[in-house]
C-alpha cells in the first residue's frame, strides 16, 4: 500500500488492515511520524499542531485489539518521559514520571503514542491562541483558529497528520475545535473515563474524549478508554461495552431542539446548516420536537464562576517547588511563589485564577460560587426533564465558524461566548458529540448531539446515521 493510501485509512479501517496483515504497524507509524515531523519542521508554513513527535514506534503488542494505530495525545496528558506542559511555560521541561491512565489503557489496546498536541494553556481557551507553544492554524484556512482548547488535536486529525487524537473537554474543548476543523469530537458522560494523569483544570467538569475523522473511529477509541480506575475515585464502571455504530436510519427517534441554544447569538450560516441537518434527520425517520432548556442561557455565567473557581484551587500546585520553572533571584519563599506564577502563567490563566479566587473569597462565595452551583442543579434538572420527552437534543456546536487569528484575543467575553452551546451539557455531565454537518463560507459547521448519561452507544448510532446522510467531505483540509 502506498503512503498516501495508508494515510487515507480511517482508524477502524487501519486496525482491520493491521489485523488482516495487509499493512504493518511499523509502516503505518512511520508514514504518520514523517508527516508529523514535516509539520513541526515547517515552522510558520505548518499548522503548529505538535509539541513533540516520537522518533520511533514504542514496542507494542501485535495481538492488541487495535494492532498499532498511532495516537496523537493532547499535551496535558502526562506521558512518561515525554514532555507534558499543558501548553504552559510554568511546566517548561517537565517530563512526568508516569503516564495518564487513559494513555496507558490506549497504548495497551494497541494505540501507541505518535505525538503530543498543542493546546490552550491548561485547557483555558477556545482558539488555541493561549499557548506557550504559539497558536495552531486551522487546516481549512491558515489565517483562522482551529478552536480550542484541543486545537492541536483537532487540526492534526483534520489535516490527516494523525489517524486520531485524544483531547479533553471541560466546557467544549473537544466539541468546539472538532466543529471548527470539520471532524468528529465526543465528550463522554462525566466519570466514564479516568482523569488520573490529566493535568487538572476544573475537576468536576474535565473529561477526556476522542477527536476522529468519523463516528465509527470515535466509538472505537471510546471503547478502549472507558472504565473504572482505582486512581480516580470519580471514575465509574461504564454499564456496557461500546459498540461500533451501524445505524442508517432514525425511525422512532425523538429529537429535541431547544430554542434557547438555536437562535440568538448563532450566526446565520451556522443556523442554516443546522436547519438542513434537522431536515435530514426528519428524512431518516426522526421526529423533531421543540424542547425547553430554560436555564441554558445562564449556563455560561455559571460555568465562568465554577470553572475558574476550581482552576484557582487546582493550579495552586504550580509554585516553582516540585516541577517546572522557578523565577530566578527571589530570596524569600513567598516572593519565589508569586514571581514564578507571574512569569510562568499566561494572561488568560492569570485572569481565571484571579476570577476564581475572587469568587471563592470571603464575602463573595454565596453570591458567586454558591449561586452558580444552584444554577448547575437547575440545568441538570432541565436536561433530565427534556430527556423524558425526547431521546436526544440537537444544537449547533459553536455559534460561528472558525474566526481569524487575533480576532477575539482582546476581548475575553467574546471568546467565552464560543462555549455558549457546549457548556450546558458539561454542567449536566451528559455526553455530547459534534459531527461536521456542512460548510458556511467554505468553513465547516458542527452539529452537536447530546443524550442522557451513559447513552453513548445510542448517541453514536444517531451520529452515524446522520453522518451518512449528511455526507460531509473533509478531504480539502488534508495536507
Amino acid at each position, binding site marked *: 500500500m502506498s503512503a498516501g493510501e495508508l494515510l487515507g485509512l480511517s482508524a477502524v479501517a487501519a486496525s482491520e488492515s493491521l489485523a488482516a496483515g495487509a499493512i504493518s504497524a511499523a509502516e503505518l507509524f512511520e508514514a504518520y511520524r514523517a508527516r508529523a515531523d514535516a509539520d513541526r519542521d515547517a515552522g510558520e508554513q505548518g499548522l503548529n499542531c505538535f509539541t513533540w513527535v516520537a522518533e520511533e514506534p514504542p514496542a507494542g503488542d501485535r495481538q492488541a485489539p487495535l494492532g498499532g494505530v498511532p495516537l496523537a495525545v493532547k499535551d496535558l496528558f502526562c506521558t512518561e518521559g515525554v514532555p507534558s506542559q499543558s501548553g504552559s511555560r510554568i511546566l517548561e521541561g517537565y517530563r512526568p514520571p508516569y503516564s495518564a491512565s487513559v494513555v496507558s489503557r490506549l497504548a495497551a489496546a494497541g494505540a501507541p503514542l505518535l505525538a503530543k498536541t498543542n493546546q490552550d494553556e491548561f485547557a483555558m481557551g477556545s482558539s488555541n491562541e493561549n499557548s506557550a507553544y504559539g497558536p495552531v492554524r486551522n487546516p481549512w484556512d491558515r489565517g483562522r483558529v482551529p478552536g480550542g482548547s484541543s486545537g492541536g488535536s483537532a487540526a492534526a486529525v483534520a489535516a490527516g497528520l494523525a489517524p486520531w487524537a485524544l483531547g479533553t473537554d471541560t466546557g467544549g474543548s473537544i466539541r468546539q475545535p472538532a466543529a471548527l476543523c470539520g471532524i468528529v469530537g465526543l465528550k463522554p458522560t*462525566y466519570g466514564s473515563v479516568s482523569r488520573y494523569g490529566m493535568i487538572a483544570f476544573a475537576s468536576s467538569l474535565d473529561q477526556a474524549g476522542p477527536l476522529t475523522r468519523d463516528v465509527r473511529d470515535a466509538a472505537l477509541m471510546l471503547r478502549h478508554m472507558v472504565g473504572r480506575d482505582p486512581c480516580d475515585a470519580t471514575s465509574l464502571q461504564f454499564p456496557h461495552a461500546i459498540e461500533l455504530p451501524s445505524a442508517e436510519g432514525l425511525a422512532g427517534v425523538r429529537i429535541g431542539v431547544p430554542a434557547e441554544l438555536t437562535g440568538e447569538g448563532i450566526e446565520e450560516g451556522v443556523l442554516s446548516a443546522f436547519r438542513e441537518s434537522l431536515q435530514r434527520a426528519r428524512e431518516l425517520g426522526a421526529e423533531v420536537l421543540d424542547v425547553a432548556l430554560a436555564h441554558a442561557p445562564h449556563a*455560561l455565567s455559571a460555568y465562568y464562576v465554577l470553572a475558574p473557581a476550581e482552576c484557582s484551587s487546582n493550579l495552586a500546585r504550580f509554585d516553582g517547588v516540585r516541577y517546572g520553572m522557578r523565577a530566578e533571584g527571589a530570596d524569600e519563599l513567598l516572593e519565589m511563589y508569586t514571581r514564578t506564577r507571574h512569569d510562568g502563567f499566561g494572561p488568560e490563566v492569570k485572569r481565571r485564577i484571579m476570577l476564581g479566587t475572587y469568587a471563592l473569597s470571603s464575602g463573595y462565595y454565596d453570591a458567586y460560587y454558591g449561586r452558580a452551583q*444552584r444554577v448547575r*442543579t437547575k440545568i441538570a434538572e432541565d436536561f433530565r426533564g427534556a430527556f423524558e420527552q425526547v431521546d436526544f437534543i440537537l444544537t449547533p456546536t459553536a455559534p460561528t465558524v472558525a474566526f481569524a487569528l487575533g480576532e477575539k484575543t482582546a476581548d475575553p467575553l467574546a471568546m467565552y461566548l464560543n462555549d455558549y452551546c457546549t457548556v450546558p451539557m458539561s454542567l449536566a455531565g451528559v455526553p455530547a458529540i459534534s459531527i461536521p454537518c456542512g460548510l458556511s463560507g467554505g468553513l465547516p459547521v458542527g452539529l452537536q448531539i447530546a443524550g442522557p448519561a451513559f447513552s453513548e452507544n445510542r448517541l453514536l448510532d444517531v451520529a452515524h446515521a446522520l453522518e451518512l446522510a449528511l455526507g460531509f467531505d473533509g478531504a480539502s483540509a488534508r495536507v
Partner: protein
Amino acid sequence: MIAREEVLHVARLARLALREEEIEPMAAELSAVLDHVAKIGELDLEDVPPTSHVVEVTGALRADEPRPCLPREVALQAAPAVSDGGFLVPSPQA
C-alpha cells in the same frame, strides 16, 4: 469596576505577583466578566440545592493497603532545586 485594592488583595490570595501596569487592565477585565456572570443573581434559587458533582458516586472507599509509590529520586527529578533528598526553597523569612 473592581477597586485597585481589591485586585491586589485577590492577587495576594492567589499568590500571583502583578506588575504596576497589569493592575488596571486586570481590574477592567475581571469587572467585565463579573458583570456578565452577575446575571445569575436574577434567578430565583431559593430552596435549590447546590450541585458540586453531577454523577452520584457511592462506595468510592477502598481498603487502606500500602503499595509502592514513586521512589524519592524520581519524585525529585523534575524539581528546580533539591538538597539532601528534599525540595530546596528559599527561606520563608528572609
